[in-house]
């Protein structure tokens, strides 16, 4: 039983500041450009291991109309059968090889990008085998009909289960509201998953899995020459480019609307009501990112000490978890806040959450709140970069969002430079209560 939920922690962080003495900030090295890809390395020698990430510009937002879930399945089925240099490898052989190497290979698909990660011991023979296997997965998945059908059925069964869960229904409806016509407004359904064919998977893979859409980030016990070799092995068999891909629409700012059009009530028979609100916001490269980051720490990002936590939980005991965050991507970004409360308290909890956010947009933080926020972010910066996994998260974000390579070195300075006026101005510029989408699920009137 944790005292608070993880999602009260800001999702979008990156980078490193300067702290003293023996622990200089580890530099990000640029690797040789190979076949139109980009590559980055941070060398850490203390442990005999290496983390490798391939970011692919092939997220959910490229799902074709009516086939939502395709990006997910294209990635998720890469390790269920491949053509390799040694011939065909079955899903069982791939799984056994990964296990025998003591390696981990994971795949995840987000709105903007698909991420493949390898964690391996850095010993050359083991590392080489892990990299070669991954290269075959990336370039030559077989998408065998029998396996595709099995996994489609499993996905559908999972979706049917998810559709009985309050948090899933809430999130699906919120996405539809906040993203509107942007492709991220559509999420997988039974029908859209059922519509995906082997041919769709092949096509999607061919279209999007190209080296000019890939970024490789490496952290661990390898030198630059070894890192370059890893990139080349990974991308050797992948085509550099392909047919042009249609431009996605711009994400339109959430419009001013009367409450009745922005707020959705979903009847649901559960003990708790789930409530969320939010709107479109900023990308990671937006110059107002830092004022919003610092401001949100005060509003709902700062663990047990935020205003939302104080008003909703500490003062009134209305919820276990309450949070707000900005989720800035490369091309899109949203703001979202949420909580869960006993179903007959929904109206009160929504009122407290709304008025807390409204007041913050109108008045901004107090000088002492701003100081406390900066103090936490600056003093806590070392905790954002104190192991290989966290360094990889940072490098990966810098690379994906096209941020300067010294981003980690100047991060704390950028936080320190934020003023009260900047926070207020940024919140007023990007957020507005008459634009907030609201979804309330399972509310009961007393």
């Amino acid at each position, binding site marked *: 039983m944790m005292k608070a939920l993880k999602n009260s922690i800001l999702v979008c962080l990156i980078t490193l500041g300067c702290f003293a003495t023996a622990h200089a900030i580890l530099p990000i090295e640029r690797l040789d450009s190979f076949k139109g890809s980009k590559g980055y390395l941070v060398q850490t020698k203390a442990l005999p291991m290496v983390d490798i990430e391939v970011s692919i510009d092939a997220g959910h937002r490229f799902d074709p109309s009516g086939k939502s879930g395709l990006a997910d399945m294209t990635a998720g089925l890469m390790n269920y059968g491949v053509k390799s240099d040694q011939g065909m490898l079955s899903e069982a052989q791939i799984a056994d090889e990964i296990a025998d190497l003591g390696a981990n290979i994971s795949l995840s698909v987000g709105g903007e990008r698909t991420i493949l990660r390898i964690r391996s011991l850095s010993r050359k023979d083991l590392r080489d085998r892990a990299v070669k296997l991954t290269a075959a997965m990336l370039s030559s998945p077989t998408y065998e009909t029998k396996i595709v059908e099995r996994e489609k059925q499993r996905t559908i069964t999972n979706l049917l289960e998810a559709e009985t869960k309050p948090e899933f229904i809430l999130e699906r409806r919120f996405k539809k509201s906040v993203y509107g016509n942007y492709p991220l407004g559509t999420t997988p359904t039974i029908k859209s998953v059922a519509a995906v064919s082997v041919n769709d998977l092949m096509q999607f893979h061919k279209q999007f899995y190209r080296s000019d859409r890939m970024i490789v980030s490496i952290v661990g016990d390898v030198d630059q020459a070894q890192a370059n070799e890893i990139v080349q092995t990974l991308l050797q068999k992948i085509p550099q480019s392909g047919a042009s891909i249609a431009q996605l629409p711009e994400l339109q700012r959430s419009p001013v609307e009367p409450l009745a059009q922005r707020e959705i009530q979903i009847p649901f028979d559960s003990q708790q009501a789930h409530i969320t609100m939010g709107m479109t916001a900023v990308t990671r490269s937006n110059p107002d990112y830092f004022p919003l980051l610092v401001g949100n720490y005060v509003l709902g990002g700062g663990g047990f000490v935020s205003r939302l936590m104080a008003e909703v939980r500490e003062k009134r005991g209305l919820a276990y978890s309450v949070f707000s965050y900005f989720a800035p991507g490369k091309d899109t970004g949203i703001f979202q806040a949420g909580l869960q409360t006993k179903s007959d308290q929904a109206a009160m909890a929504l009122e407290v959450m709304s008025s807390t956010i409204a007041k913050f947009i109108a008045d901004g933080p107090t000088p002492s709140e701003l100081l406390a926020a900066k*103090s936490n972010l600056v003093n806590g910066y070392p905790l954002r970069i104190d*192991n290989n996994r966290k360094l990889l998260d940072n490098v990966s974000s810098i690379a994906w969002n096209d941020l300067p390579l010294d981003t980690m070195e100047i991060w704390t300075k950028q936080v320190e430079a934020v003023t009260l006026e900047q926070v207020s101005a940024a919140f007023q510029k990007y957020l507005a209560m008459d634009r907030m989408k609201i979804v309330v699920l399972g509310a009961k009137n007393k």
Partner: protein
Amino acid sequence: MRSNLLRICFLFLLCAPISWAASSDSVDTHEFLLSNGLKLIIREDHRAPTVAHMTWYRAGSMDEVNGRTGVAHVLEHMMFKGTHKVKSGEFSRLVAAVGGRENAFTSRDYTAYFQQVEKSKLDEVIKLEADRMSNLNFDDAEFLKEIQVVMEERRLRTEDNPSSLLNESLMATAYMSSPYRHPVVGWMNDLQNMKAADARDWYRSWYAPNNATVVISGDVDPQQILQVVEKYYGVIAMKELPVRKPQIEPPQKGIKQVQVRAPADSAQLAMAWKVPRLEPGKLDDPEPYALELLTAVLDGYDNARLNRTLVKQEKVVNDVGVAYDMISRGPGLFLISVSMAKGKTIAQAQASIRKALDDLKQKGILESELKRIKVRILSDQIYKRDSIFGQAMEIGTTEMAGISWKDIDYILKKMQTITPEQVQAVAKKYLVDEGLTIAVLDPQARKSEVSKEGK
């Protein structure tokens, strides 16, 4: 679900010698016993200028008594509500001000509190944590609000979560007398009737230096930190602790079954067998190690036995998980849980699980399967050292179970000596109906089913 092999920390690879940059655990770890009975364990890790500071109390939900279930966890919440010197909420504000991350967690076996900070801030959080070991002072109004928060937590995690409801019923059915039968969060009625005095009694009984272990990992100088710990924790008086009754679960005499009806789409099945745990002082008993390896042979990687046969080949279940934790204070349980594939029944799933287990019991396992698992265990130990916090967690959970961190090396060596025959033997001996509890989730349509969007 994965087995808890991960908690064993160590540093060599089975298949071939490797020269490690890192030094061995025993060199980097230091243990001290303060005169008031507080145990301090320091793991040096100088890769980054950060520290994890954890304070573990050997008091979890298994130490609760009837009518007061959940009080260990409620007290965990109240620990943030002020001391004689630090007012309510101030603890978190002070930790936040130094850039710290903090939280706390309660299990059946223990309650633990932690902060992660940049190393120069360590003294500050030691001072705060030591203060609330003996000076907690919250008022009734704070309790009345916080107990509402805890009930919201129970609604979120259990009442509206069919898998949790199933697990809760499984534990309450498998155990008749062991306090492991109660949920950590407590029964709702006990929470509704809990008083501030119950939480205060709990604190007075169990929060004492002689019932605590402080674990610090990260970029620290052990001698210097020892002085700081002496200064702040060392002044706290030791207490006589309540007598812990053994409450040993009587032997089970046959299959037990329980059904839970809750809103869901797929049926779920959980099969749980009573098995031994690793007992302090009996580290040469091969059975717990063999059970850990059996867990991984069944479910340790994507092509492990149950995933391969039940999910991929027979397509009788949609997902499978196997769990066993040999490191615990209370009795051991070996758990297989599955959710049904579309159109398949509980009976079919149970038959398939039994068939897979019978096959293993009769034919044993391959040397190559076991070797694969052992390699994974070893490489996981390297990966785990990437996390400063994870290292403190491992030391703390092991110590709470009554096993010294110093034995972790030995436990790992023992694990590597286990043979396929020993794995087969524990399957034959323990995965039998005599000690089996079966829990079934019978899915119900929700009364106000929302229209399925986009269909």
